[in-house]
Structures are given as C-alpha cells and as structure tokens.
C-alpha cells in the first residue's frame, strides 16, 4: 500500500496506478454534495448553471459531506468536514453526476455495492475518510462559492479549493477492486462460527 498525492488535474495514468487500500491526499477544487444536492445537480435544466460553473473551475472531486461552516461577514469558513455514507446519495445519482461532469474522485464513507464496477468503467476512484475532520477543513484554502443555500447550510453545495486534504483511503480503484469487499471476505471467515451458532444468514 502506497501513499500518493493527487494534484488536480489528475491524469488517467495516475488514477490507473492507484490500488484499493492506498492512502492519498488531494489538492485542487472540490464540491460537497448530499442527497438533495445531487437531485439539483443532475436535474437537466435546474442543474445546468452549477454544472457549467464546476466545469469552468475544473472541479473533478465530489465530497459526500455536510460540512460544519461558520458564516463570516465576508467569507464563510470551514470548521469540520465529515463524510456522509455514499450509499445515502445512491449509486444512480452518483453515476449520473460523474458522467455529466467527468468527475475523477468520489469521497465518501463506507462501501456502495456496484460502485466498484462503475469506477472501473468510468475510470474514477472512490475514496473513504480516515482522518481528522478538523484537519480536512483546515486544508480548505478558499471557499469559492455556495450553491443552493436555500437547502440549509449542511445540504447546500460548497465549492472549495483544498491543499493536501487527507489522508483518504482508496476503496474502489479503477481495476474493479474494492477494499471493503476484500475486508468483507476476511470478516466472513472470522465470523463464520458465531454466525452458524446463532443461525445468522448474511445478505
């Protein structure tokens, strides 16, 4: 397992070299997104303006997060950035947004079934957090914009520039592997005797 720094724009070669379990830090522009935000973002008409802006800014990373933000008189300040489970956003919405915006990095929490196959097809990676959420926020060097503030501060989309945000762990890489899937194989072995004893069937 290696440690890699990803500076935007991230090339396809660099992405192909990433393996499930690697540790990465990232620099560049990213945006936060939760469930309602995704609905707006992928809406054919309603999301067009924001999608255009994200493309112009070269934002190629989505962070499934409802950050803790301090509203300032001039500029908002990120206090902490905590991940939201990626399955809460839903695979269909994520895939649509990645397709519309050409995203390369998806940051979230936990495993989302089937996302590893999509990452392989689309050439993007799913990263999960293993960090200090205050330090993540401290890596935000600039809050660029806030879209759809009427959704409330945590659900709105925050577009920010980060420098060295991490560590993040590669869950799904571009080769169809998922770290959580590998871990799950070990879990099934470790838990086998208890599962049998209590007559528990796994999904």
């Amino acid at each position, binding site marked *: 397992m290696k440690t890699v720094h990803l500076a935007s724009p991230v090339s396809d070669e660099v992405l192909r070299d990433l393996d499930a379990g690697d540790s990465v830090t990232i620099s560049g522009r990213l945006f936060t997104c939760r469930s*309602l935000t995704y609905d707006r973002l992928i809406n054919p008409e309603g999301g067009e303006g924001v999608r255009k802006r994200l493309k112009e800014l070269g934002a190629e990373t989505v962070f499934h*997060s*409802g*950050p*803790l*933000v*301090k*509203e300032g008189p001039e500029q908002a300040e990120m*206090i*902490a*950035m*905590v991940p939201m*489970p990626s*399955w*809460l956003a839903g695979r269909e919405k994520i895939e649509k947004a990645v397709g519309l915006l050409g995203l390369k990095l998806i940051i979230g*929490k*936990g*495993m989302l079934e089937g996302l590893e196959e999509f990452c392989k097809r689309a050439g993007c990676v799913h990263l*999960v*957090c*293993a*960090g*200090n*959420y*205050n*330090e993540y*926020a401290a890596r935000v060097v600039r809050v660029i914009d806030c879209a759809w503030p009427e*959704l*409330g*501060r*945590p*659900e709105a989309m925050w577009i920010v520039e980060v420098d060295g945000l991490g*560590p993040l*762990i590669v869950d799904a890489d571009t080769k169809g592997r998922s*770290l*959580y899937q590998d*871990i*799950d194989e*070990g*879990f099934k072995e*470790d*838990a086998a*005797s*208890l599962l049998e004893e*209590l*007559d*528990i069937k*796994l*999904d």
Partner: protein
Amino acid sequence: MLSQQAVARTVTALWKSNQYDLPEDFKSFLQEQHDKETSEFGKAHLKANLDAVATASARNMPFCADTGLLTYYIGLGTGMIHEIEGGYRALERTLREVSAEVTSDIPLRPNAVHPLTRHNPNTNQGPGCPDIKMRVVPDADYLEITNVAVGGGPELVGSKFTVLPPTAGEKGVRKFVVESTINLVRLGATCSPNLVGVGLGGTFETCTRMAKEAAILRPVGDRNPDSELARLEDQLMDDILRLKLGPMGMGGATSAFDVHLEMAYCHMATLPVAVYLQCAAMRRTTVRMYADGRVESRPLSSWMERETP
C-alpha cells in the same frame, strides 16, 4: 431563586465543553485501543478520532462536523419546583433560545429540518427540537441538566427495533443484536466502534428509549446491577468482539466500546428488543444547579438511576 440567565450561561458552557472534548471514559478507551489495535486501518481510524479531539480541544471547535440534534435530560428536584425564575415554561424557553444561540456562536451544524419539505431554519429549532425530556426527582434540591448531542449516524443507520416471538429467549436476543450490529457496521455503513445499547422488553417506546439511554447515558465499563443482565451484557460484548468488524468496519479488535442493556417487563405476548449504536463522537455533560446559585459539575447523569423496589 435560580435565574434564567444563570441557566443560559451554564448550558452554553456545557455545549462548548462537550463539543470540544470527549468524556474521559471514551477518550481513555480510544487511547488504550489505539495502543493495542493490530489492524492497520483500524489503528489509523482510532488515531484519526484521537487527533480530531486533540485538535478540537486546542482550537475550541467541535471535533465532529455532525454536531448532532440537541437533547436535554432534565431532572427537576421537587425542592426546586418553586425556585426557578419564571417556572418550568421559562426554563424550556431558555433551553430553546440557547440552542439557537450556540448554533450560530460555536458554531454547530444546523441539523434540524422539516421531515418532508426538508426546510432548514439553520437554528436547530423546530417542533421537538431541541429535544427536552423532563423527570421530577423526589426529595432533591437541585435542577440537573444533561446535554447530549445526538449524531445522525446512530439515528440513521445505528438503530433497530423488533418484537421477537415470546419464546425466542436469550439466543433470539443474541441473534437480533449480533445481526443488527453486523448490518449496521459491516462495510462501513456507520462510524464504529460503537457503544451498543440494548433495550430488552417494555413497550414499543420504552424499549427503544432504554436502548438509546443505555448507549448514551451510561459510561464505558458500567454493568447492569442485576447480575443476570450483567452476564448478558458480557455475553453480547463477547459476541460482538468475535466479529472483528473493527473501526469503520475495516477489521480489527476494536468493534465496540461496550454493551449496555436495560430491561423492563413486557406484555406476555411479546419480546421486544431494540439496539442503538452510539458512535465515538459522544457528547454528554451534566451539571446540577441549586437555588443559591451553586453549579456543580457531575461526571454522569442520574437519569438512569433505577427505582428501588
């Protein structure tokens, strides 16, 4: 007479201290587990938890961006009923106002939204928010206030309730608790390790209330005074540790802080069981306030103190 201003000042200080720092039992558990955890990813997650708390304490900021739904457990001593300025309604009003003030001042994440329209007033105020629970404490001369910030993880993915057949017995309870824990923690669905609260018996709402209170109001290492229930707590803890789910479901020895179980008699036709998984972001603080203005910090809430038969 206890002034509303004194209550507001005290409650504001409680929110700051419990958002900036973990209770001692949680912090020392995380440190001990970090030192002995052998799973590489597990250790990294525990270190991240500890680092976040250290950073937060040093910079006076919340250690988790999900600063929770604000909840108050109020123990109103019978000797204090006539000693609160403006009475109980005024006290409720103060707690509501403070919740909005700390949301903008600390700041806290405004988490309270309308369930259907998803409207967010950005104040953590709305029907039922903050959540104020009150109990009268006989023969007591204090007002006890416990502040707990309830995170979205335990509420979203960390809670399960069922009614088992009446003869399902201990094995049925173990099966439900273990199965729920697997489904909630496996593949990183919720932030683990967790303090697993179990409600056993009671009615629909008593069962879920017991599970949640067992998870958030009792300290790590505590055991139910009933030795049979304490044995079941140990059994469930052993079961969960055998799963080796680890921090963030990434494998390892640290799968739970502890298991706490509360029991109430149930209807003969039922065997209700509830599970509540409190994450590492435990925010709980307790004080007692007296009519003469004294404020006494308490390590634990007395909310869980059981009736003596």
